[in-house]
């Protein structure tokens, strides 16, 4: 027997496998081609475009009001924030000042969106790592926010509430009460999240020290959002370039220095507390007033270019509009956070095992329509 082992030289050869496009942990149609040496990842190559709709080209023929409705088809978990980015860019170009009431409502809606996105992320991340309970918990709690949104804007997915100049409708009479009920409820539930996953030994071992990203690399790759902040890259747009009511509320920018999966996980959990803190400051202080300022039926921006960035649940979302004075933009570019965050995946996953790649992808919180656009 010994002879046989010595005779045959055990060869290890690099080989390729496809992860996706229909892999449960890629959260959509992302295809990764992995170069493997045994189970060690040598290279990750993303193949994109399975749901590319060329939204940027469509925008070149649409009016600005119509463009707003395309943006929530990209990052559908940050839909209100994406819509707001386009509205802000248009308002900035028209030099339109929206009423205080709009600013406060938009900020509350933004933070509710962030909360619901992080809840969903927490649920699916637990499931990626083999804990089905978290999935049920996450969706159970997210349901309350979805109900608030349904009452506010009439939809549960691809929601539209922002328009250039303000909001579609005023808030529902129940809005404040339901939001406060939700905050009171979720404040009790969020510590349960910690009990279930954050302090779980198996979970920690799969996250601690995995998929490290240094601060320099995070900046170079343009990795933003909780992912970038977990590496120590201070990139919160709400702090650096405050928009809407963010300059009048008190909140902390969550920063970590370790840059591994567990740091990214902790960042998002801490952000949920901050989001609730922001909503609490505003929910009882919604000023009276109009919920929109009238705009022309056909909005024509002056000649020029504008760049508006906002902080979505995934990071810095940018809208770059070049206008030639027509009813449609000459060129419109969406800088999606997922696209830049994905570019760092190869760098983070090299040398890890396949199971670690699942953890890394989960903590990047990729939304594929946002990447493909």
């Amino acid at each position: 027997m010994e002879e046989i082992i010595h005779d045959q030289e055990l060869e290890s050869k690099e080989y390729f496998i496809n992860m996706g496009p229909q892999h449960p942990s890629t959260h959509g149609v992302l295809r990764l081609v992995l170069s493997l040496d045994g189970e060690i990842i040598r290279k990750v190559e993303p193949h994109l475009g399975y749901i590319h709709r060329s939204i940027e080209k469509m925008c070149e023929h649409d009016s600005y009001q119509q463009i707003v409705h395309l943006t929530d088809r990209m990052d559908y978990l940050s839909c209100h924030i994406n819509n707001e980015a386009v509205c802000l860019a248009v308002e900035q170009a028209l030099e339109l000042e929206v009423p205080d009431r709009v600013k406060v409502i938009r900020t509350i809606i933004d933070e509710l969106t962030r909360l619901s996105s992080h809840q969903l992320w927490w649920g699916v991340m637990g499931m990626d790592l083999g804990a089905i309970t978290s999935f049920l918990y996450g969706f159970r709690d997210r349901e309350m926010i979805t109900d608030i949104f349904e009452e506010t804007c009439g939809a549960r997915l691809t929601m539209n509430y922002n328009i250039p100049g303000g909001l579609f409708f005023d808030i529902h009479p129940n809005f404040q009460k339901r939001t406060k009920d939700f905050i009171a409820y979720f404040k009790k539930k969020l510590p349960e999240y910690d009990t279930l996953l954050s302090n779980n030994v198996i979970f920690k071992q799969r996250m601690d020290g995995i998929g490290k990203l240094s601060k320099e690399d995070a900046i170079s790759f343009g990795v933003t959002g909780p992912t970038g902040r977990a590496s120590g890259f201070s990139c919160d747009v709400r702090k650096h370039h405050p928009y809407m009511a963010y300059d009048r509320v008190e909140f902390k920018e969550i920063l970590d220095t370790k840059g591994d999966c567990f740091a990214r996980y902790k960042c998002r959990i801490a952000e949920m507390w901050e989001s609730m803190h922001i909503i609490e400051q505003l929910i009882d202080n919604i000023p009276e007033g109009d919920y929109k300022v009238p705009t022309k039926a056909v909005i024509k921006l002056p000649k020029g270019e504008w760049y508006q960035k906002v902080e979505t649940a995934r990071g810095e979302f940018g809208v770059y509009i070049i206008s030639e004075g027509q009813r449609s933009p000459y060129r419109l570019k969406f800088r999606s956070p997922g696209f830049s965050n994905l570019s760092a995946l190869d760098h983070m996953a090299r040398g890890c095992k396949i199971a670690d790649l699942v953890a890394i992808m989960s903590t990047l919180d990729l939304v594929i329509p946002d990447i493909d656009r």
Partner: protein
Amino acid sequence: MNNEEIKQFILDHVAEAECMEGSQFLQVTIPAEKILSLASELKANPNTSFDYLFCLTAVDRPDHMEVVYHLKSTTHNHQFVLKAKINTRENPEIETVCHIWRTAELHEREAYDLFGIKFLNHPDLRRLLLTDDWEGWPMRKDYDDPINMIAY
């Protein structure tokens, strides 16, 4: 650095740069051949240290192509827009900056895919969003797609 100092800094390195105060950012247009030397200087010089490229995209103009770089420094917190002008639409070529800002690698592949701008010395310049056998550059203004026509 304020806009005036950034302007002076660039004019010192690229004499033919055209500067324009936009409504938001300072916009600087330079010839495409100068991009690599200027970009490395902007990143490496401690006074500018533009280390964060937050948006890279291309624009198709009637007689030329533009590659637009939105740059920010995380240490000095200043930002501006750099535009590299490629004087031809036939076979546009420009040096890659993905060795300076690594995020450029995917963004440049996207610009190549949709606009047909060739990024020289790019490590892996292939189509990104479209299939490998796609013909034409869809984001160009003169792109004609008879199958997926959008009617107005």
